[in-house]
């Protein structure tokens, strides 16, 4: 059993799901069995956004220690702003709007990569610095004004199939595709190789720089895309809409079982972790605890999940 868990990588992400289910059960108990399914539905709706940004963050983190994308929140906001102004409330412009958001992300990602590569700035600082610039751009671009999304987009984000958000179904498909990209494409394997040992990867014929560029660009493009979708879901852009994704993107990735030491990533964990985080807050809200205690418990539970999952086994 242990061997099976280890081999399939399930050992890494199982605990996120165990955590999510536990928290959910407690919530249902607190609410006297009230709204059990609706809670899950609401959670799935929000998990979509977490999972999307975390997917990009995960690829970045997997490229090795020190790699992290802090520009995600700013990119979400800018992407949302660009998309909404391109769409300008018209259903016909939805696709161009999304493309514009993705293009914005690609630009930000390339800029991040250029800072890291050309100026050799540690990624954490490079993306932090660029996030300030992107944030300024978003302010300058949007002037803090909120533009409404097209109706069709809004309807899509609220659509349900058998009580499951359609958006979540699409995102699950996306996750599956990305899982294949990670395991079965040369790009995905290159990410994992670089994450373990960039020098060895280079000597083993991996195009290290191209892989890193794609990775940072992927992360930012997903952030831009998520921004556009999120603006549809929340009925418009606001300058602070990205902020919540900073800690969330990192927490979802790591609770989901991706190693911050690099070289290891897994996608199923993202959903478990995203649901865990959402349901955790719900549970504490439902229990009606004060904000101090809520934060305290959030912290303790995050540590508990990660401790239960245990660290990586040391090599010999």
């Amino acid at each position, binding site marked *: 059993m242990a061997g099976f868990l280890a081999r399939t990588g399930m050992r890494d992400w199982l605990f996120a799901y165990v955590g999510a289910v536990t928290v959910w059960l407690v919530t249902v108990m607190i609410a006297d069995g009230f709204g059990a399914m609706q809670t899950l539905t609401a959670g799935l709706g929000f998990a979509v956004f977490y999972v999307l940004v975390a997917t990009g963050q995960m690829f970045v983190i997997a490229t090795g220690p020190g790699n992290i994308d802090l520009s995600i929140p700013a990119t979400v906001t800018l992407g949302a702003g660009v998309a909404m102004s391109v769409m300008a409330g018209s259903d016909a412009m939805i696709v161009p709007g999304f493309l514009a958001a993705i293009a914005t992300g690609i630009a930000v990602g390339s800029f991040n990569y250029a800072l890291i590569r050309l100026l*050799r700035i540690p990624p954490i600082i490079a993306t932090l*610095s*660029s*996030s300030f610039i992107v*944030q300024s751009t978003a302010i300058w671009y949007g002037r803090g004004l909120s533009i409404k999304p097209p109706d069709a987009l809004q309807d899509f984000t609220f659509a349900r199939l058998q009580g499951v958000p359609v958006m979540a179904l699409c995102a699950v498909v996306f996750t599956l595709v990305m899982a294949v990209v990670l395991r079965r494409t040369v790009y995905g394997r290159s990410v994992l190789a670089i994450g373990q040992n960039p020098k060895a990867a280079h000597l083993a014929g991996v195009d290290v720089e191209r892989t890193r560029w794609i990775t940072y660009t992927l992360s930012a493009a997903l952030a831009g895309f998520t921004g556009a979708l999120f603006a549809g879901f929340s009925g418009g852009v606001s300058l602070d809409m990205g902020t919540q994704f900073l800690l969330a993107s990192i927490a979802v990735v790591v609770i989901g079982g991706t190693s911050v030491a690099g070289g290891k990533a897994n996608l199923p964990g993202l959903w478990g972790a995203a649901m865990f985080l959402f349901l955790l807050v719900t549970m504490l809200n439902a229990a009606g605890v004060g904000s101090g205690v809520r934060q*305290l418990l959030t912290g303790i539970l995050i*540590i508990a999940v990660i401790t239960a999952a245990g660290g990586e086994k040391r090599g010999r």
Partner: protein
Amino acid sequence: MTIDWRELVRASLPALALTALLVAIFWLQPRAMSYQGLNLLLNLSIPIVFATLAQMFVLTVGDLDLGIGGFVTFVACVTVTWLADAPLIGVLILVAAIAGYAAVGALIELRNLPAIVVTLGMSFVWFGLAVIVLPSPGGRTPEWLIAAVRLRPPGIPLAILAAIVIGLLGHLLLMRTSMGVVLRGAGGNPRAITRAGWSMLRIRMTLYALAGLMGVLAGLTLAGITTSADANLALRYTLLSIAGAILGGSQFTGGRVSPIGAVLGALVMTLAASFLAFLRLNPDWQIGVQGAILILVLALRALLDRVAGER
């Protein structure tokens, strides 16, 4: 002995950046070039210097501390409440907090956990505790502490004096003592350290406790300067301390740290923000330019590195 240029340039970069910033500020605002001026410019750097050193101690074992901002906030909140009202309990809480930091280090080592996530979790814990200790902004820093940070030593502003003393002490402890070597070695190759019979558990706990101690000092001095606190006071110190430490030449791959560099890095981070205020930018771009300055300084480092590397 010949001079290692590469190392020299690396080490002197934060100092160069600091000098450049100071010159630019003096040029924009000659008034800053006085005792009072320097004092105003730099007195908020004292807690940042401590926080950056805390971050550096954690970086020493190759970990990253995302909780230091929350911790400093928590300490400040305790300072304006318990330490002011019941000093004995206040001191006990602070000592327990340092022990808490060491315990986090122990947990990370024993369970082989990624520090970045554990400290991320701890940032919620510290923030939550801060809100519990001080639910709404207020409190009053003990007078002795306020007086201490308002000290005007003759000739040299307190912030500069403090920076020098802290930097030198840190340097002695980590770079010069025989114990410091073991602590840094643990970041470079933990296996070699264990094979030499040292306990990684004790090493990690020591470094985390040192980080906790620095965090406490940061919280105390911060509370001294602000005279009262709130639960969101210093959350930003997390990123600030990381940026300062990296700017000062520390690296994420363990064991390569520099206490003096960290102090200088913290000063640069403090001054960079001030410098912007002197520039009178359009508010839209004030935030962006902070990013640009960070990029500039680090790019300079990369450039100097490359030049030095070609020697």
